């Protein structure tokens, strides 16, 4: 067998690929309109996550903390959640949705956030805010379970679980994008528009790329409404593009409301986009229009220019969110490249049974190592000490020093990307995303050829 | 126009507040020590009296005092012009004023915290 599925053998993590669950819940919560999450834990759990978002998006997002201090850690800190909800509601009159996001500290001390939500519903909200629509949603995201990816998955499910109400059946679909960028959401909405399909988009974060306006809007917000979240129960189908980032919500809607769940593929690359459109067409009865045939053609035309001349047989190491890494791997293979190492950065047991990984195991004829529960040292150590040679690294900015120190070109992709400008605007999904991605890979490679004087004259003539 | 001695004290205070850091540590015991030693040595320098600077600690206070004395001489001509006894009186008032602003009249609740 050429394709090997292994796990990190070391106990510890050297240079993590992911942060922890509460960050994922926070990422989901900023996608909802009129929502400010309260993270129940130490202040760092919010302050740094807000910083991380602002590093990636160059925007500021609102998230609150219950500000757990010493006394709370000893005696319990639910009173601080109560106060936080009240303070937030008093000062932010538009806020309607408040997820209460737990952390390692408050899970260890056993603070009952479900209980405090019941208490607040029966007390504070009834008395002080009786004329106001307020939704408090407990989200359990202990940091010692899973990663930011599972935290996102859990939070999306909890939001859907809280809001979804069966009323009238709708022709709309649910589109759960997974951990996406504004550019991705734009590209996905474009595909849906071309297909004439309407959707409840979870989450509508195109607005994360917010403008500098004369009116001076000062924060960025997602725009998925309570109405859309409620309506998810009535949809014709749920498309959860990423198995591990929204899959749980799709399953919930299927099990509870019989909404068919179509989980995957992440429409990264030509083939995955084809599959997505095919499934979309099946679920909605809408044909794939000529406009998309043409768009696909433009992408294919562009990608053909760079594949067998430049990309063929280039060895790639990839790390990041599992659905992203796996889909990228598939696209790289279609582009004649050779992914040799995939790092999946948490201990999710489901990876072992992922059909996409199985397909790799069954069909590859060269060595590809897939490391689960990995850290970035799994990549660096192989390069530094074990003779791994790669032509290209694909991953987020936290791994940038591997590229710099070992002089390997790197395509920035995933979350977070803070050392290249504007990457959140560039989609990786759909035909447009495939084309941009292929061109980004090629351009990165070209720059490296020049930088290293590695056959760079061949770029003179096309 | 000649300033009152109160105005002169305020002039001297202002230099310390805007330009120095030695007076601002977090506990009363430190502030008392700093105010006392540095103002004493500054007074001695301004009055051309001998300054003890044998130990490292004394030397360190002396360094801040030299700087302060020079700053005073440079900024306020009256410092070198007035009678030494008058200057000493102003410096005593300066010390009192500093102690008030930074210690006895201070609103900083941390000054008396016995722990770090």
């Amino acid at each position, binding site marked *: 067998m050429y394709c090997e599925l292994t796990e990190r053998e070391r106990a510890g993590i050297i240079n993590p690929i992911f942060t922890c669950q509460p960050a994922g819940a926070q990422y989901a919560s900023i996608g909802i309109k009129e929502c400010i999450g309260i993270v129940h834990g*130490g202040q760092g759990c919010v302050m740094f996550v807000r910083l991380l978002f602002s590093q990636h998006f160059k925007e500021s997002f609102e998230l609150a*903390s219950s500000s757990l201090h010493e006394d709370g*850690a000893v005696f319990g800190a639910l009173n601080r959640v109560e106060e936080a909800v009240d303070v937030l509601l008093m000062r932010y009159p538009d806020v309607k949705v408040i997820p209460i996001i737990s952390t*390692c500290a408050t899970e260890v001390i056993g603070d009952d956030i479900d209980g405090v939500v019941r208490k607040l519903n029966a007390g504070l909200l009834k008395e002080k805010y009786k004329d106001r629509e307020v939704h408090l949603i407990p989200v359990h995201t202990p940091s010692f379970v899973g990663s930011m990816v599972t935290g996102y998955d859990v939070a999306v499910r909890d939001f859907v679980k809280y809001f979804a109400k069966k009323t009238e059946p709708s022709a709309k679909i649910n589109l759960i994008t997974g951990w996406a960028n504004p550019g991705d959401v734009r590209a996905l909405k474009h595909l849906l528009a071309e297909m004439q399909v309407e959707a409840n988009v979870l989450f509508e974060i195109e607005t994360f790329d917010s403008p500098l306006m004369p009116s001076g809007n000062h*924060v960025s917000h997602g725009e998925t409404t309570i109405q859309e979240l409620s309506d998810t129960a009535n949809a014709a189908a749920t498309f959860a593009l990423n198995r591990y980032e929204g899959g749980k919500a799709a399953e919930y809607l299927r099990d509870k409301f019989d909404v068919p769940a179509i989980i995957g593929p992440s429409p990264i690359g030509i083939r995955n986009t084809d599959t997505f459109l095919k499934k979309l067409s099946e679920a909605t009865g809408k044909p794939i229009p000529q406009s998309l045939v043409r768009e696909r053609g433009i992408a294919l035309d562009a990608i053909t220019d760079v594949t067998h001349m430049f990309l063929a047989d280039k060895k790639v190491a990839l790390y990041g969110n599992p659905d992203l890494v796996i889909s990228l791997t598939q696209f790289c293979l279609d582009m004649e490249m050779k992914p040799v190492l995939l790092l999946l950065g948490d201990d999710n047991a489901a990876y072992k049974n992922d059909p996409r990984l199985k397909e790799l195991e069954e069909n590859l004829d060269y060595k590809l190592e897939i490391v689960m529960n990995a850290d970035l040292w799994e990549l660096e150590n192989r390069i530094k000490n074990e003779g791994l040679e790669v032509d290209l690294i694909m991953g987020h900015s936290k791994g940038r020093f591997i590229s710099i120190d070992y002089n390997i070109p790197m395509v920035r992709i995933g979350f977070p990307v803070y050392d290249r400008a504007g990457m959140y605007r560039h989609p990786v999904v759909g035909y447009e995303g495939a084309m941009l991605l292929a061109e980004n890979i090629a351009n990165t490679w070209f720059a490296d050829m020049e930088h290293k004087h590695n056959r760079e004259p061949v770029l003179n003539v096309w | 126009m000649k300033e009152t001695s109160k105005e002169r004290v305020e002039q001297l205070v202002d230099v310390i507040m805007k330009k120095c850091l030695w007076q*601002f540590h977090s506990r009363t015991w430190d502030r008392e020590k700093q105010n006392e030693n540095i103002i004493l040595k500054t007074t001695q320098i301004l009055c051309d009296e001998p300054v003890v600077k044998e130990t490292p600690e004394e030397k360190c206070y002396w360094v801040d005092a030299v700087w302060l004395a020079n700053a005073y001489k440079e900024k306020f001509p009256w410092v070198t012009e007035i009678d030494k006894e008058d200057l000493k009186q102003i410096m005593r008032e300066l010390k009192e004023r500093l102690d008030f602003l930074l210690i006895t009249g201070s609103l900083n609740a941390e000054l008396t915290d016995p722990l770090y």
Partner: protein
Amino acid sequence: MPYHLFKCSECIPERGKHAVIKGPGETLADALPLGYLNTIPGSISERGCAYCGAKHVIGTPMKDVIHMSHGPVGCTYDTWQTKRYLSDNDNFQLKYTYATDMKEKHIIFGAEKMLKQNIIEAFEAFPAIKRMTIYQTCASALIGDDINAVANKVMKEMPDVDIFVCNSPGFGGPSQSGGHHKINIAWINQKVGTVEPETTSEYMINYVGEYNIQGDQEVMQDYFKRMGIQVLSTFTGNGSYDDLRAMHRAHLNVLECARSAEYICNELRVRYGIPRLDIDGFGFEPLSSSLKKVAMFFGIEERAQAIIDEETARWKPELEWYKARLAGKKVCLWPGGSKLWHWANCIHEEMGVDVVSVYTKFGHQGDMEKGISRCEEGALAIDDPNELEGMEAMEMLEPDIIFTGKRPGEVAKKVRVPYLNAHAYHNGPWKGFEGWVRFARDVYNGIYSPIHKLSLLDISKDEIPVDRGFETQRMLSDVHLSEEIKNSTELREYTGGYDLLKGLKERVYPEFPPKANVALPAV
């Protein structure tokens, strides 16, 4: 009453004592904001936690150390690659971070065994590194792991390694400041006095409270070296673990950031009799005074004077070029803790700007005393500001630029106020003479950015100027400037390069013969 209650905070009246406006004739004894109190939950404060104060702010700048956090992965990840503290060993401590990866089973059964395994693995991965700091987190504190015991055990088994343990969980105190203190005290209690230094000069200092943001420490070290002074240790930017264990042998503690590092200096004074000299590395005048004071302590004032003369001659005309163009610009000085008082007075005097507001996210009342003392009348001082108060203050004060953190900077950008990164700088280093000019240049480029000016235009209703194809900063800044200044041949724009540190690395330092007859302060 000088206290200021923001409109947005009227519903949380306890905020009323956290802001003051410095009134005419008022002193610190009249009004001082409360400080370092528990944060109001849900207020969207900008504070971090005590873990980050210890690990991220003070601990990690130490350069030749494996920085391991005992807990779930998030604390480690979140405080990694988010600050610009460099080191001259190829930024080892910036590149590598370590988490013990605490999982549910460890919460239930304890994580000491896996901590030990973690320590051994990390040393194996980096065989050249023999020093480690282990940081407690909320999770490991709450389950009660005895990190000290594990560290001691490993040190017994691996005699060539040394481990420092910092127990500062995230919930320990109102802000990151709690962590600053804990790591100060832990270091002096555990590590100072356990190594004897190699002496290369008869004058030795500890440089305390300097974190080498974009190379600040290297700039200051350059001055000290030019004076023949050995920087025995720097706490902690670009600092070496073993050098810091030898802090007890210095003749003088030169203290720069008196909130995060004051306690260790006080203890060094109490325990080892090393005096403490408070200095300022920012601004020509404060820096000159500081260098002179340090030199005077050692009786080598002429060496400091030579540097001051040389640097001032080289850089003052450039500082003045910017000052002439920044005069009267309104600044909100909104950093984390110490910059408010480091900068409040000297940017006013040396860059000509007016500080209309200072704030501190995590500082204490002592920081506010300094900050308020050093700014002019009318300035608004805010303790533990929150999102809405920051907005309200910007609307009220209409600053021309704000100096703050990355994320609040994004808020400012959106309301079309240029921002500079006060924590990590734009084009630093900002310490030193040249650094100060770089700061002035960054302020200038921020305020007079043609793009910034375009952002003020509403093309749907404003008159759109169509008479020009471009503007330059100079076209904007020199509009109201006198001909004399405009055409001055004395003044000039910044002439340094992109990377100031490159020049420092090539410098050859003079050798000073030992000074006979100078009694060295005995320690």
